[in-house]
C-alpha cells in the first residue's frame, strides 16, 4: 500500500494543496517552504491512528499552531489522503478538525471510503446525540475502525527518521526516558537490540558491508549490552596495530552514525518511509548513490515500500532515474506554500538526459539568492 494522493487545507504552510504521489517522492524547495511540515502531515495520520487525535494535535502545539498562517482565524483544517493497494483497493481517508470554545480539538468531519463506497461518514446520528464523541476519531478506536483496520494499520506503519547523532550517543541527555518511535534516533539502539538476534545480525552484516565502503576502517558491527543493561553498537576500527580496536556508538563519527541509522531504518518496518534530508554529514559520492541503495533494499522486500524524502541535495537528485512526476517542488507564496506544477520544457529536458538536479533544483532556489553575499557590503 502507498499514499497515492494528498490534499491539505490550512495545514501549517499549506492553505490549499493537492497532488498525486508516486512510490518514490522527492520533496524539494527553499528553506522554510514547508518540506518538514508536508512530511509531518503523514506522521500526523500515524499519530492519530496510534495515540488519538487529541495527543497528535497537542504534540504539535494545538489547533492554532497547526492551522496555516494564511488561513482565516477560525478555518477548519483538512488532511485527506488516498491510499492505493495496487490491483486491490483504493482507500480514501478524510479528516476535518477544528477546536471548540474551550479550545478542545473537535472532529468536524471524518470520512472513509473504499473503492468509492463510504464506510464511515461522520458526524453521524450518534455524534449528534452525544457531541463529546467528536473529540475522538473513529480511526484511533479499535471498536470503531473494524471496517477499515487495514487503513489504520497502514497509517501506524509509517516510519520517519531525522537522526541526530548526538541523540544516539547520549539519549538521556535529551530526555530521561526512552522515547518510542523517536525520529531523532534516541531509541535507535533500543530498537536494534529488540530486533530478534538472527534478523539483527543478518541486517548488521549487510550494513557493515555497505559501511565498509563509506568508512573503510570500520569493521564488523555488533549489538552488545553493557552491565547496566544499556544496548550499544560496537565496531572494530582497524589501524596499524594487528588487533582492531573496539569502539562503540559514542565514538562513531556523525556521518557513520547517520548512515548506519538510515540503513537500519530502511530495513526496519514495512510502511512508508519518510526521510528528512538524508544527505546530512555524508560525502557527496555516497549521497549520489543513496537512491540506488534505497531502491536495491526495496527490491529485496516482498512488498516495496513508499519512500518520501525531503532534500536540498543536488547529488541525491542527480540520479538519472528520478522523473519529474516523482518530485514535489514547494514554492512559498503569500497565500501559503503551493506545489509548483511541472513544466513541459522540464519534462523534455529530463527525457533528453538531464537530471532533476540540473533542471528542477535551480528552480527550487530561494528568490533573490544572488543578492545574498551583497547584503553584507
Amino acid at each position, binding site marked *: 500500500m502507498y499514499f497515492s494522493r494528498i490534499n491539505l487545507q490550512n495545514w501549517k504552510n499549506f492553505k490549499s494543496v493537492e497532488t498525486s504521489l508516486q512510490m518514490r517522492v522527492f520533496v524539494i524547495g527553499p528553506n522554510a517552504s514547508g518540506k518538514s511540515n508536508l512530511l509531518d502531515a503523514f506522521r500526523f495520520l500515524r499519530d492519530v491512528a496510534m495515540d488519538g487525535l487529541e495527543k497528535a494535535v497537542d504534540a504539535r502545539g494545538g489547533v492554532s499552531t497547526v492551522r496555516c498562517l494564511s488561513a482565516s482565524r477560525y478555518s477548519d483544517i483538512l488532511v485527506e489522503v488516498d491510499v492505493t493497494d495496487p490491483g486491490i483497493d483504493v482507500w480514501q481517508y478524510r479528516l476535518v478538525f477544528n477546536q471548540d470554545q474551550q479550545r478542545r480539538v473537535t472532529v468536524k468531519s471524518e470520512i472513509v471510503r473504499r473503492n468509492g463506497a463510504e464506510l464511515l461518514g461522520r458526524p453521524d446520528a450518534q455524534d449528534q446525540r452525544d457531541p463529546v464523541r467528536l473529540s475522538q476519531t473513529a480511526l484511533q478506536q479499535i471498536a470503531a475502525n473494524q471496517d477499515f483496520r487495514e487503513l489504520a494499520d497502514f497509517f501506524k506503519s509509517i516510519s520517519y527518521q531525522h537522526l541526530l547523532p548526538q541523540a544516539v550517543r547520549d539519549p538521556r541527555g535529551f530526555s530521561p526516558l526512552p522515547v518510542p518511535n523517536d525520529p531523532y534516533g534516541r531509541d535507535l539502539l533500543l530498537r536494534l537490540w529488540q530486533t530478534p538476534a538472527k534478523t539483527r545480525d543478518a541486517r548488521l552484516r549487510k550494513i557493515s558491508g555497505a559501511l565498509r565502503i563509506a568508512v573503510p576502517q570500520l569493521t564488523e558491527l555488533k549489538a552488545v549490552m553493557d552491565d547496566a543493561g544499556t544496548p550499544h553498537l560496537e565496531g572494530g576500527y582497524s589501524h596499524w596495530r594487528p588487533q582492531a580496536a573496539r569502539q562503540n556508538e559514542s565514538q562513531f563519527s556523525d556521518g557513520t552514525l547517520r548512515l548506519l541509522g538510515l540503513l537500519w531504518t530502511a530495513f526496519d518496518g514495512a510502511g512508508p518511509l519518510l526521510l528528512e534530508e538524508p544527505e546530512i554529514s555524508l560525502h557527496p559520492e555516497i549521497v549520489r548513490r543513496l537512491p540506488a541503495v534505497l531502491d536495491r533494499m526495496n527490491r529485496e522486500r516482498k512488498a516495496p515500500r513508499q519512500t518520501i524524502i525531503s532534500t536540498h541535495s543536488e547529488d541525491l537528485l542527480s540520479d538519472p532515474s528520478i522523473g519529474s512526476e516523482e518530485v514535489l517542488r514547494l514554492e512559498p507564496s503569500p497565500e501559503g506554500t503551493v506545489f509548483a506544477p511541472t513544466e*513541459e520544457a522540464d519534462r523534455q529536458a529530463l527525457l533528453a538526459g538531464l537530471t532533476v538536479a540540473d533542471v528542477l533544483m535551480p528552480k527550487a532556489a530561494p528568490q533573490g539568492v544572488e543578492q545574498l553575499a*551583497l547584503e553584507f557590503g
Partner: protein
Amino acid sequence: MNIDILVEGLLDEAVARRLIVYTGHQAGTSFGNRGVSYLRQKAAGFNARARHGAPMLMLVDFADTGLDCPPAVPSAWLPDRSPRLLLRVVVNEIESWLLADPLGIADLLGVSSAIVPDDPERLDDPKQTLVNLARRSRRKSAKAMVPNPGISASVGSGYVSEMQAFVTNRWNIAAARQRASSLDRCLLRLQELHSLNSTNMP
C-alpha cells in the same frame, strides 16, 4: 520576455542577469553554476528544454573551450541548436567584458583608468589582469580580491562578491559594448529575442 540563464559560475550569472534586464527582458531561473565541463556535457539537454520552454541565454568563456576560434563553439557544442537557446561566446573570459568599462573598473579599484588595458578581448588572461590591477590598489575591498600569499588560488576570497556587486550596481554596459565586440553581439541577439514569438518556434 522571461529568459532563463545557463552559465559557468556566479559572476557569469550576475552578468547574464544584467544583460537580460538591460535589453528589456526579465531574468528567469539560473542553471548550471558548475563550471565549463558541466555546460559542455549538458548543453544538448538544456537545448531541448529551451525548445519547449523559456528562451535561454548561455554564456561560455571562449578561453575555457579549448577550441580554435569563437565561431567554432556553437557547431562543436550544439550542432542542433534551437534559436531559442542563445549560445554566446565570451571573448576571452567574462572579465574581458567587465574590463571593457575602464572608468568603472578604475573607480571600483581606486586606480587610474590609464592602467586598465584598452583592448580587453585580446587579453590572454583577463581574470589575472583584473586581480593584478586590484593588487595595485590601496583599498581594503580591492585587496580582498587578491589571493593571500601562500594560498594557491587564482582569486582572493572577496573577488566574486566584489565583482558581483560591481556588475549589479555599477557596470556601464553602454561603454563596455564599445570595447568588447562579443558583448555587443550578445546584446544585439538578446534584443532580437523580442521579435521571437511562439509562432516561429521550431
